[in-house]
């Protein structure tokens, strides 16, 4: 039972954060929801770090909810993503914390974030298609609301509309896919589907269902050609939401895809790879091409994340525990690097627009911030010794193990192209002269602490083997 504590605690936490709003006097400046949510999330993270689930699957409710090594490590990832996004959002609820204005109702905001995290937990623990579907929806619907949190800002509302319209279309596509798989198998549990697929690897319903689900998950993961929502939504949504979207939502889709490909569909892994290769190549190429001449930072990060999704998909070509641990490890690397980058952007965004030109002269103004930004960019481009290199290397290695050498070359060449635009950011920060008219930047203690934690992560995760070994240990348990 105690393996379920994190899941229960996060639900209680979400309700608690909402309730605090009712109990406390209507005082917008109260710190209570913020303190409660980050302390709560941090303690849940600690529980997840210390917890080692028993080998095999620990089932709850007739197999609809499963706890194993993979779900534990993924939950840790979701919790950390939510935690850092909430820490990042703090300044957005204080006056003058952001150029786009001050957000209100922060207990609602944080409760929605935590509910969303609970949805992600459900995906990680899903044992059948129903809980998978409910989890995906529970992790997406709060994000629709969160992206429209700047009610007075037209672009925020526009982003939310784009997101919800396309999101519900993708949900419908995915559901249509689930229905075909249900039709073919007659059951919704993953174990039944596994048995069916082993015996009928070429069943057309399974394939149509899988392709529909892949399209739907491709949308969430931001894979080309299902990526087109990403740049617009990333740009329009408030930065804390964009952070959570880029890390959390992507990881959920990866988790779901992993559940399917390494679970029920593992018998047809060889065949599904053909489709994944196409999507991976398209995503890498389109993401890299789109990122080249961007001027807006969050939009830029959207394209960069599309390309990153392509790299992650390369890892899916591998088989077994090695591939899974490589993907999960890369998600951690990606989380630390992306959140750190968005943190820096949010500091820029306090007084300036979040665009390339606002980065000018950052190295003169805040040398440590500029150095951190450079580290993040190098990590995203996959340059040793930063975490991005180790992550990418293991991903490529897992694909190469199955003989997909061409994909390794495509991935490596694409990361060379990506270096070009990541260097553009560094160029703005280091080379261009600071703009005299730009208002100065300030960092408070909270931001400094967070940035140092994230920066340490970006460097150390790739260098110190403990992290990868722990991931691989937990993956091997399940």
């Amino acid at each position, binding site marked *: 039972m105690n393996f379920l504590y994190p899941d229960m605690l996060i639900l209680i936490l979400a309700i608690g954060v909402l309730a605090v709003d009712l109990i406390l006097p209507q005082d917008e400046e109260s710190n209570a929801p913020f303190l409660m949510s980050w302390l709560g999330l941090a303690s849940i993270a600690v529980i997840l770090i210390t917890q080692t689930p028993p080998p095999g699957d620990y089932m709850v409710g007739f197999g609809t909810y499963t706890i194993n090594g993979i779900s534990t490590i993924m939950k840790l990832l979701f919790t950390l993503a939510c935690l850092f996004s909430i820490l990042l959002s703090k300044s957005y609820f204080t006056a003058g914390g952001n150029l786009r204005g001050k957000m209100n109702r922060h207990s609602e905001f944080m409760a929605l974030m935590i509910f969303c995290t609970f949805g992600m937990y459900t995906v990680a623990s899903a044992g059948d298609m129903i809980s998978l579907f409910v989890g995906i929806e529970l992790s997406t619907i709060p994000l629709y609301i969160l992206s429209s949190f700047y009610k007075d800002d037209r672009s925020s*509302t526009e982003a939310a509309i784009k997101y919800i319209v396309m999101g519900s279309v993708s949900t419908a596509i995915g559901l249509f896919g689930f229905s075909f798989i249900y039709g073919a198998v007659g059951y919704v549990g993953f174990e039944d589907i596994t048995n069916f697929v082993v015996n009928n690897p070429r069943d057309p319903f399974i394939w149509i269902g899988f392709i529909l689900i892949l399209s739907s998950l491709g949308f969430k993961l931001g894979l080309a050609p299902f990526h087109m929502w990403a740049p617009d939504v990333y740009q329009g949504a408030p930065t804390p939401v964009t952070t959570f979207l880029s890390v959390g939502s992507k990881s959920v889709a990866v988790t779901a895809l992993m559940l399917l490909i390494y679970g029920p569909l593992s018998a047809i892994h060889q065949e599904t790879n053909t489709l994944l290769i196409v999507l991976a190549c398209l995503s890498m190429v389109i993401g890299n091409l789109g990122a080249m001449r961007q001027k807006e930072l969050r939009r830029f990060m959207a394209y960069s994340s599309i390309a990153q999704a392509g790299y992650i998909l390369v890892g899916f070509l591998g088989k077994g525990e090695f591939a899974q641990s490589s993907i999960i490890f890369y998600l951690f690397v990606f989380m630390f690097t992306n959140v750190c980058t968005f943190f820096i952007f949010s500091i820029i965004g306090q007084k300036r627009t979040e665009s390339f030109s606002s980065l000018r002269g950052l190295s003169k103004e805040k040398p440590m911030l500029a150095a951190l930004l450079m580290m993040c960019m190098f990590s995203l481009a996959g340059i040793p010794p930063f975490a991005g290199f180790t992550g990418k290397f293991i991903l490529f290695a897992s694909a190469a193990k199955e003989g997909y050498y061409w994909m390794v070359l495509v991935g490596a060449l694409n990361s060379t192209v990506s270096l070009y635009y990541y260097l553009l950011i560094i160029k703005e920060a280091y080379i261009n002269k600071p703009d005299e008219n730009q208002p100065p930047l300030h960092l408070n203690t909270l931001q400094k602490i967070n940035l140092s934690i994230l920066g340490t992560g970006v460097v150390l995760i790739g260098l110190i083997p403990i992290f990868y070994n722990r991931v691989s240990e937990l993956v091997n348990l399940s």
Partner: protein
Amino acid sequence: MTLSNCLILACMLFFVGIYGVMTRRNLIGVLMSVELMLNAANINFIAFAYFKAADSVAGSIFVIMIISVAACEMAVGLAIIVTMYRKHKEMDISRLGGLQDE
């Protein structure tokens, strides 16, 4: 009535939904078309549960889940659309081009 009839109906409904999503200018209309697509999936589930599936209860539960989740989704969608209309006086999907690459 056979399984294939139901599946054809679901497919048609799905494509009608796609057509609606891609052609309607009004945001409410777009959401309604999405609802059609979701219902196509529902019909599929019910049809499979009725004609074929060994575990027919699961299909029915799935449908109930879909209906409730879709309700949530539509509620949120409508709320956002209402915000758009009240704050920015906009209901036309083709005029939501504020966010784009230059």
